[in-house]
């Protein structure tokens, strides 16, 4: 079901004919777009890896002052959607547009994708391996590169992949900062010229790039398994004494936090003060918030409906079919929201016209985008109630319905509810698919922000941005809490 849009995309492009496709494809513009997009992805990924690993190491493995505060600060940029960060920068610094500004904003927004998994891996890795390396005569730096980096390699590649896919899919920031990438070009082709074939071909190239990166990650993931830690009792890792480097490190992390969080916060606060002075705005904001709520609710409901059987199947009957299903839904997750939105537009116009520009089609778009998020939540929740608990309950004389009521549901419902909340908030933040698929005349927080930003009405955009950031902090907090970085030192 989530692959309908993708399949349709391929079919429609095929109908355009090969000559037309090659005509569109082999232009200087496409090669320039490809160069820009890949360049941006590379620069941002490298930047995020350096920033993320550095911050994670300082927070987890050194005696940095105020470590827990910095752990929260390093995770918090996740709560700032890139289009909001871009909007706050562009409204603060004049002429802030193009490749490098986009790279800066995207790096500052996405380095938590590296920081969080790497920090978790560093906190969970076995210090004994490092001690063995030191005892065999390797110095601190040699041990870090030969042992520590390999221990955290799965987290590193996973985080890096996430960043790269995120940059490919990003639409809001690159559009606001006028960086020439595929997503922006696709939207312009579709929005201005209604150039379907052009938009379709460009979408397919973008999908191709995505698949390429995914395949690369799969190829490197298998050897990574060898570095999985051994079983047995673990101690928490020893911390390195930073000595007089402590305060420079604090300064560095503070500077990053100021750029990533301080600029958006200051800009929002200033613009909000201007925006509130205009009367009549608040009814618009309230309407948009209402629309956001109802559309996201529909999206979250449909997504969970599809995710429940898929997640339970993955958790309870691991096998070929469930693995394939899971992988397929991840493929659609890696697809840019813009491409999913666009293919659903064509699908709606040509196949299910009554659904075009309806809430149902938008909900389907959300489902295609966020199904993996929901499936992971369901799978995790199901793992909370392993089958052996049900076996025990049955053997104690309780029938299947009673077992479901007294054991399975109490254990799984919290996880499923958290999944619904996550999907709901992801839907609220989603911009490109919402822009393309929303029912005519229905404005949400995200689209209002977008509309106002594109006409440089920064003050009018501020309330929407503030509300969205506030809402986004909730799942960010959940995510950070889950990595264990925030847990106080163990007493043992």
């Amino acid at each position, binding site marked *: 079901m989530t692959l309908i849009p993708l399949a349709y995309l391929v079919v429609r492009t095929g109908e355009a004919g090969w000559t037309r496709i090659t005509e569109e494809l082999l232009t200087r513009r496409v090669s320039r777009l490809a160069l820009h997009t890949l360049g941006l992805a590379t620069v941002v990924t490298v930047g995020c890896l350096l920033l993320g690993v550095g911050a994670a190491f300082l927070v987890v493995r050194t005696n940095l002052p105020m470590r827990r505060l910095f752990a929260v600060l390093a995770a918090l940029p996740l709560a700032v959607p890139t289009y909001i960060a871009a909007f706050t920068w562009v409204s603060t610094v004049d002429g802030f547009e193009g490749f490098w500004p986009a790279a800066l904003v995207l790096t500052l927004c996405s380095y938590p994708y590296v920081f969080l998994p790497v920090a978790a891996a560093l906190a969970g890795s076995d210090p004994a391996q490092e001690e063995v390396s030191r005892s065999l005569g390797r110095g601190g730096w040699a041990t870090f590169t030969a042992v520590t980096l390999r221990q955290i390699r799965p987290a590193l590649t996973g985080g890096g992949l996430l960043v790269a896919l995120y940059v490919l899919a990003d639409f809001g920031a690159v559009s606001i900062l006028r960086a020439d990438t595929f997503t922006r070009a696709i939207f312009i082709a579709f929005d201005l010229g209604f150039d379907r074939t052009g938009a379709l071909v460009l979408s397919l190239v973008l999908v191709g790039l995505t698949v390429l990166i995914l395949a690369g990650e799969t190829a490197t993931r298998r050897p990574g398994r060898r570095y999985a830690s051994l079983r047995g009792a673990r101690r928490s890792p020893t911390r390195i004494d930073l000595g007089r480097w402590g305060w420079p490190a604090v300064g560095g992390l503070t500077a990053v936090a100021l750029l990533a969080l301080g600029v958006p916060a200051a800009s929002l606060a200033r613009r909000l003060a201007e925006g509130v002075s205009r009367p009549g705005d608040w009814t618009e904001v309230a309407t948009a918030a209402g629309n956001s709520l109802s559309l996201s609710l529909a999206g979250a409901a449909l997504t969970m409906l599809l995710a429940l059987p898929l997640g339970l199947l993955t958790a309870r009957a691991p096998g070929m079919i469930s693995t394939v299903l899971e992988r397929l839904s991840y493929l659609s997750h890696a697809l840019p929201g813009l491409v999913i939105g666009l293919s659903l537009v064509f699908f709606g116009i040509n196949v299910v016209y009554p659904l075009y520009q309806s809430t149902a089609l938008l909900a389907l778009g959300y489902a295609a985008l966020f199904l993996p998020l929901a499936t992971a939540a369901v799978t995790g929740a199901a793992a909370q109630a392993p089958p*052996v608990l049900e*076996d025990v309950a*049955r053997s*104690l*004389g309780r029938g299947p319905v009673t077992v479901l009521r007294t054991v399975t549901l109490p*254990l799984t419902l919290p996880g499923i509810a958290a999944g619904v909340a996550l999907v709901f908030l992801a839907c609220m933040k989603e911009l490109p698919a919402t822009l393309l698929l929303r029912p005519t005349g229905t404005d949400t927080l995200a689209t209002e922000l977008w509309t106002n930003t594109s006409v440089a009405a920064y003050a009018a955009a501020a309330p929407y941005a503030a509300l969205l950031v506030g809402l986004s902090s909730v799942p960010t907090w959940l995510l950070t809490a889950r990595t264990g970085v925030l847990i106080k030192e163990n007493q043992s």
Partner: protein
Amino acid sequence: MSYLELRAVAKRYGPVDALTRVDLTVAPGTLTAVLGPSGCGKTTLLRCVAGFEHIDAGSITVDGRTVAGDSTHLAPHRRKVAIVPQESALFPHLSVRDNVAYGLDRATRRTSRVHEVLTLVGLADHGDRMPHQLSGGQQQRIAVARALAPRPALILLDEPFSSLDAALRADLRDDIRAALRADGATAVLVTHDQGEALSVADQVAVMRAGAIVQAATPADIYHHPTDPWTAAFIGDAILLTGQVHDGTLHTPLGAVPIAPPRPGWSAPTTTEVDVMLRPEQIRVGRADEGVPATVETIAFHGHDALITLRLTDAGTITARVFGTTGLPAAGALVGLRVEGTALTWATRMPVPVPTPPEHDRRRPVGPRRDRAEPGVGH
């Protein structure tokens, strides 16, 4: 009357025969240990009795009622067969008291039954704790109490001690054995640890490749194993080849009397035979007395020692020596004598002899301890 009776039970997963033909009888109020190497079908057998698997042939009777047979398959919750799984599997959202009360009906919950079984397992004051606040051993005790509470016809324990360390395990299994006995429960314990099976069970059923090879009391099964494989699986065994001439058994350790015949075993009439002795039957003496041998290695266990000895022309054997002062040194020449009688079987194609699990060879010598700190590893 027997509480549990399995007749020719068979279970197949696709092309794999998990259980080929299992016959077993368990008397009321007793503990039977089903002992076998990993993958022999022990856990499958347990799941068939509990009702989580449908059997393909045979019948299972619990407390005089056929729960699985030709056209019968009673659902697990109607069988009155409670399980204690390997990883205790306490309900994480329920307190210890609610876990134990889970299988009780409303009326029984108001009685002192919960307190009674908690006392039996020695955790009467832990009712208000949550499972994650308990150590691994305590969790297993609660899992047993939970199974005991509704007074089921049968309790099935699936390697309940295997995840605990050796010192804790010995204490826990003695306590749980006592709790089961005090409550008059009938139980089947599945294990791959022969020391565990021999020390706690009233009856040991040795399982191999989906069938019960032998079921008897621990002493019987140790002294009269049904074949060389079982002999080596139950404890240390010295397996030799010998010849019988005119009713006398000649072995590399000299002439040894053959055990008198008994039900289920009698000496074969062939010339070539397999011979089984236990290491504690070997007496190690001065070099000029008995069969000469060289000491290769000595494994010291505190209360006893296992001496590996090289015979002049028949490989190595082990001898168990108690009273471990004045042990011979490695390389010393000694003389060997055999005490007691030998079991013999007609020589057959050799069955691969199992090696006992590693941990059985290093029993703790220090004082036993129970781990009391809560929430280990959580």
